[in-house]
């Protein structure tokens, strides 16, 4: 199976000490490596205001990580861990590899078109020039 990429975001209670957040990240990392997944990056967005109230809280500590794996079941296990973890109030996993693949494809397509374009643009200005000539009729009546 080809490699999949997931985005995993979870939100902790705003009053959790940094150490506890690190602990959650560490447990996720260990379970991930255990199951053969690789954590590409971990980014702490820090305390942010949430768009709506979650468990009567307005703020949360956001942590964002990127996971690469060939086994989709890892996600299930990670989500179970998050559900169990006390400081976590919300989490979201999104599979992104297909969209990134599409993005790559579109980008390549665009670059190929851009590379091809120079010839076209040389031809294109020639065409508009001709239509511009007829408007000289406008000046003809006045003259």
């Amino acid at each position, binding site marked *: 199976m080809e490699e999949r990429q997931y*985005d995993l*975001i979870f*939100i902790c209670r705003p009053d959790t000490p940094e150490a506890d957040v690190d602990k959650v990240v560490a447990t996720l990392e260990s379970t991930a490596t255990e199951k053969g997944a690789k954590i590409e990056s971990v980014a702490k967005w820090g305390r942010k205001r*949430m*768009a*709506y*109230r*979650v468990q009567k809280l307005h703020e*949360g500590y956001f942590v*964002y990580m990127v996971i690469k794996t060939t086994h989709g079941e890892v996600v299930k296990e990670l989500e179970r861990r998050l559900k169990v973890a006390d400081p976590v109030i*919300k*989490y*979201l996993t*999104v599979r992104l590899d297909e*969209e*990134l693949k*599409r*993005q790559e494809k*579109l*980008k390549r397509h*665009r670059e190929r078109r851009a590379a091809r374009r120079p010839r076209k643009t040389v031809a294109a200005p020639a065409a508009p020039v001709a239509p511009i000539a007829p408007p000289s009729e406008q000046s003809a009546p006045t003259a």
Partner: protein
Amino acid sequence: MAEENAPMQQSHGPSSGGMRSSGPGGGPGGPGGGRPGGPAKRGKRNFVRKKKVCRFCVDKADFIDYKKAEILAPFIQERGKILPRRMTGTCSRHQRWLTVAIKRAQNIALLPFAAEL
């Protein structure tokens, strides 16, 4: 909502049937340059509508990131509803991506489902 829709639909158009012969001549591409849906300076019935362009096409976006709430925010109403294409001018492809991105952002509390009281 209904008030917002009216100018967009150019509901005054048909009534100004006689005026139109002079209207479109200077209208598209001409001076005046009103805001989208806004009235032109000259006649009160002349609407110079600027063509709405898909913002994501202008930026040549191949991917709409759900994590950037500030990019998605202009495409929702204050009450949290996703704005339709006819209001924002987004092309169909990007609108499809946009709705997915907005819904993801809602799930992780980056955007509201509905405005709070």
